[in-house]
C-alpha cells in the first residue's frame, strides 16, 4: 500500500503508455513526464506568486492581495488573464527578432533543467550520467537570454540591467559550482539519482544528508547564497533594481512576454532550490527514519516549499547590496570559502571516522570564516545610521 502510494505516478505512466503500440511507447513516456513537469512547476509558479505577495505583505505590515476570491487566493488567475490580454508593445527601435527570441530562450532553458531533477523515487525524466553538469550547462544559457533581452530593447536602462545581471551571474556561478563539487566528490558521481541514493539510510533516526557534515553545511550555505544571486532575487536583485534602473533588462517587455520573464525567473529559482535539495538535503528522502512511509514526491515538494519560504523571508528582510559590495563578496569571501571547503571535503573523506574528523573539519570551516570576515570588515567602520528626515 505504501509502495503503491509512493509509486502512483510511475504506475499511472506505465498504465497509460501500455495502451500504445511498442514503437511509440518511449515518446509517449517522455511526453507524459514533460507534461507532468510543465503542469507541476507551472502550477507551483502560480501558487508561489500569491504566497510571495501575501508573505511580503505580512512582513511589511499590510494585507497583500485580498480582492479576488476568498483571501485573494484566485489572484494568479486574474494576473494570468491580465497579462494575456495586455497589448504586446515592441519598441520601434528594438531589434525585433532578438527581442522576440529572448523570453523564448529563457523559458526553454528554465524548463529543460528539470529533465535531470528527480522529484521522487523513480521520478526523473532523464537519469543522465552527467546530470549535474547538464544542469549547470543549460543554466548558463539563461545568461545569454538575459543579454539578448537587454541589448535588443535598445534602452540604456535595459542594457545596464543586462550587464549587471551577467557580471553578477558569472561571479556567483564560480562559488555555486565549487560548492556543489564537494558533494560530487563525496558521492563519486555526477548523476543526480546516484547522489540522492548515496544520502539514503539513517543513523538512529537522523538521515545521512550531506548537510549534516561540516563541509556539507558550509557548502549548503554557500550554495544557497550563490543560488539567490543566480536567480536574481533580493538582496541580489541589482539587475532589476526598480528604484535605480526601473526594471533592468525586461523594462521594454509587456504583456505575455513580461509574464514569460517572470515565469523563467521563478522556474530558475525552483530549479536551483531543487538542485540544492538534491545535493545537500537528500532529495526525496524523508528527514526522519520513522517518516519514510510518506510518499517521496511529497517530501521533495515539502522541502521545495520550505526553501521558497526562506527565499521570501530573505527578500522581505534584507536590503539590496551595492554593486561593489556584491562583487567583493563573491570574489573575496565566497570564492576562498568555497575553495577551502573543497579541501575540507577531501580531508573528511581521508580522515578516519570519529571525533577527530569532526573537530578538524569544523575548525577548517569556522576559522577561515572568522578570519575572512574579520579581515574584510577591518577597514570599515559601522556606525549607527542617522536618518535625516525620519528621526
Amino acid at each position, binding site marked *: 500500500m505504501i509502495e503503491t502510494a509512493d509509486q502512483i505516478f510511475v504506475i499511472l505512466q506505465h498504465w497509460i503508455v501500455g495502451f500504445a503500440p511498442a514503437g511509440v511507447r518511449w515518446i509517449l513516456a517522455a511526453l507524459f513526464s514533460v507534461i507532468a513537469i510543465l503542469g507541476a512547476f507551472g502550477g507551483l509558479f502560480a501558487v508561489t506568486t500569491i504566497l510571495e505577495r501575501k508573505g511580503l505583505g505580512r512582513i511589511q505590515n499590510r494585507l497583500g492581495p485580498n480582492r479576488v476570491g476568498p483571501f485573494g487566493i484566485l489572484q494568479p488567475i486574474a494576473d494570468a488573464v491580465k497579462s494575456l490580454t495586455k497589448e504586446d508593445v515592441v519598441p520601434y527601435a528594438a531589434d525585433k527578432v*532578438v527581442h522576440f527570441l529572448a523570453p523564448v530562450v529563457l523559458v526553454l532553458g528554465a524548463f529543460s533543467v528539470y529533465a535531470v531533477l528527480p522529484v521522487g523515487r523513480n521520478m526523473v525524466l532523464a537519469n543522465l550520467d*552527467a546530470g549535474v*553538469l547538464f544542469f*549547470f*550547462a543549460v543554466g548558463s544559457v539563461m*545568461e*545569454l537570454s538575459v543579454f539578448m533581452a537587454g541589448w535588443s530593447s535598445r534602452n540604456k536602462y535595459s542594457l545596464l540591467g543586462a550587464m549587471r545581471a551577467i557580471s553578477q551571474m558569472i561571479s556567483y556561478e564560480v562559488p555555486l559550482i565549487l560548492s556543489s563539487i564537494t558533494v560530487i566528490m563525496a558521492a*563519486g558521481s555526477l*548523476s543526480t539519482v546516484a547522489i540522492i541514493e548515496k544520502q539514503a539510510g539513517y543513523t538512529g533516526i537522523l538521515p545521512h544528508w550531506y548537510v549534516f557534515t561540516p563541509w556539507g553545511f558550509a557548502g549548503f550555505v554557500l550554495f544557497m547564497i550563490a543560488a539567490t544571486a543566480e536567480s536574481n532575487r533580493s538582496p541580489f536583485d541589482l539587475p532589476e533594481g526598480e528604484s535605480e534602473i526601473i526594471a533592468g533588462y525586461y523594462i521594454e517587455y509587456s504583456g505575455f512576454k513580461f509574464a514569460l520573464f517572470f515565469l523563467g525567473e521563478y522556474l530558475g529559482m525552483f530549479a536551483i532550490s531543487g538542485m540544492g535539495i538534491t545535493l545537500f538535503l537528500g532529495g526525496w528522502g524523508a528527514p526522519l527514519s520513522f517518516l519514510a512511509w510518506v510518499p517521496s514526491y511529497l517530501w521533495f515538494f515539502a522541502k521545495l516549499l520550505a526553501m521558497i519560504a526562506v527565499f521570501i523571508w530573505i527578500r522581505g528582510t534584507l536590503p539590496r547590496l551595492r554593486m561593489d559590495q556584491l562583487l567583493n563578496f563573491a570574489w573575496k569571501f565566497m570564492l576562498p570559502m568555497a575553495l577551502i571547503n573543497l579541501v575540507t571535503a577531501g580531508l573528511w573523506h581521508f580522515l578516519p571516522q570519529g571525533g577527530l574528523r569532526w573537530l578538524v573539519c569544523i575548525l577548517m570551516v569556522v576559522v577561515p570564516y572568522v578570519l575572512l570576515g574579520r579581515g574584510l570588515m577591518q577597514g570599515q567602520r559601522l556606525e549607527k545610521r542617522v536618518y535625516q528626515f525620519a528621526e
Partner: protein
Amino acid sequence: MLFTILAILTVAGAVAAMSFRNLVHSVLALTLAFAGLAMVYLQLGAQFIGFAQILVYIGAVAILIVFAILLTRDAGTTSKSALNASASNSSGWGGGVVAVAVFAAMAWAFHASAASQRALPAQPEATMQQIGNALMLQFALPLEVIGLLLTAALIGAVTIAMHDRQETR
C-alpha cells in the same frame, strides 16, 4: 537524418556569423553553431564533451565576446561583414574556392587513408567515472600545467587592466 539536421544547423550558424552586418547578431549566430556542435557530440554519445561545450562555449565564450564587443565599440553599429567585404572584390570568391578545394582534398585523403578502413571498436562506453579517473590520475600533470598556464594568463590580464586604470586617473 539527425546528423544532417545538426550539420545544417551548425554550418548555417557559422555562415550567418560571417555574413551578418551586426556584430551582436554574428555572436548570436555563432552561439547557434556552438550549440549545433554540442548536439553533434551528444549524438555521438560523448555526454561530457557535449555538456562541457555548452557550459564553456555558450555560457562563457559567447558572453566574453559579447562583453568585448560592448566594451570596445559602439554596440549595434552595422559594420561591413567579413563575407561582404571580401565579396566586393573577386578575390573573395577565390578564397571560397580555395576553402572548398582544401576541404575536398582533406576529405579525399582521409577516405583513402588506412585510418578510415579500420573497423570501429564497439561503442566505447566512456563513463563520467572513467573520464574523471583519467583526468585526475593518468593526466594529472598536464591538467596541473594547463591550470597554472590559465592562472598566469588571468593574473596577467588583471595586471594589464589595473595598469590602464591607474594611468587614466
